[in-house]
């Protein structure tokens, strides 16, 4: 398989989808995870259980729900988002956000209370405390982001349903692999699979390097 325009387009779309979905999930999931850890309220246990359930929610079911929401006769049909990049991002948000909030909540259980006590002793404001938590938990957040990005680029069921695997528009590496397998083009499918694996490896290496850079900084 050569790196023709279509392949480059598929790779670019997959990366874009992974980055946008991970970024948006982080924006929602990190504060949500910290909130779930810090606040005690009626029904918290149920919400945590729902969050954990959603962490393992089958992507194909998520795809189906988003499809029903955005189909022409669905509640958000007027937005005409189905079979578009935004629809794929929305589907991935449903898949990744519970992973981010769940992992951040679990990580925060070990350290956040200590950090909050310190912030109160320094009379830090709410926003200063929030950013301090993010800074002090950066290693856990790095790991969460890496896991979320990995989940995003390897996901096939939901993006296939809401994206429709349209050439030059919504075809990602996973949906392309699935299509090639259907066509019996195994060598192309394997090659794309290897490219996907390499890309994932490169992203993890980049995150590892960033983390190591931070660690080196900490050794001073």
């Amino acid at each position, binding site marked *: 398989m050569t790196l023709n325009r279509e392949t480059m387009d598929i790779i670019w779309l997959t990366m874009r989808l992974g980055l946008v979905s991970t970024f948006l999930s982080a924006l929602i999931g990190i504060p949500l995870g910290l909130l779930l850890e810090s606040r005690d309220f009626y029904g918290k246990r149920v919400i945590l259980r729902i969050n954990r359930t959603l962490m393992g929610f089958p992507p194909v079911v998520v795809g189906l729900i988003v499809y029903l929401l955005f189909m022409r006769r669905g509640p958000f049909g007027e937005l005409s988002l189905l079979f578009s990049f935004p629809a794929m991002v929305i589907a991935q948000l449903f898949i990744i956000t519970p992973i981010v909030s769940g992992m951040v909540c679990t990580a925060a259980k070990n350290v956040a209370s200590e950090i909050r006590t*310190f912030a109160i*002793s*320094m*009379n830090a*404001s709410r926003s*200063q405390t929030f950013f301090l938590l993010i800074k002090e938990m950066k290693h856990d957040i790095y790991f969460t982001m890496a896991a979320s990005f990995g989940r995003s680029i390897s996901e096939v069921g939901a993006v296939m349903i809401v994206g429709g695997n349209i050439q030059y528009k919504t075809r990602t590496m996973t949906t392309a692999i699935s299509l090639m397998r259907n066509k019996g083009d195994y060598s192309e499918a394997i090659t794309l699979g290897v490219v996907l694996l390499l890309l994932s490896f490169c992203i993890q290496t980049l995150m590892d390097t960033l983390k190591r850079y931070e660690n080196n900084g900490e050794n*001073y």
Partner: protein
Amino acid sequence: MVKIIELEKRIESFQLDIKSLLFQEKKIHGLIGSNGSGKSTLIKLITGLMRPDQGTIDLGSLRSKDITFTTQRPYMLHDTVYHNLIYPLKIRNQIPAKEVIGKWLDLCGLTGKEEQFAPSLSSGERQKLSFARALIFKPKLVFIDETMANMDPESIRTFERIITDIQTEDPITWVIVSHQPTHIYNLCQEVHMMEAGKLLFSGTPKETGYFIKERHEKQWSY
């Protein structure tokens, strides 16, 4: 002056119940009592870490940003000693003066360790850094919760000297918590003794000493 009236807090089977307690301004107070007597709970209530079930805590002219506390196991930011020390100034948008930083590093015996990763410091050094960090922004009420418990005599003397110097130059209110009264008798002007969630006695260190002695004798006379 901090005035506590009819303060109540229940935590599982433990009940804190303080009818009246006064921390007079610009004095060094000692808060003593055995483990589980409610000293830390009281501090958590005053500093806003916990909400009382009932009662009032009147901070007088103090604002919450004038109050700080140090703990037995201080949290060190994952950053350098320098950045830990200036954190309270940074969040107040104050530019740290070199002489001030140098003075505090010197007082705590941390000169030359400014660029060291703070969590890698020894426990004694961490205590000293947390103490300096709590005082660098010039608070008006400081709670020291068992901070001196695991310190060597030399470090305790350093702490006492710093407290005495501050009281001579620009006095503030201190509440030093300890389960070992002897640690704080020579420093405090007033001692408050707690037991089983209640305030048992308030007086000068000398009076407190007599009270403890009398109580001890009574207990053993039966």
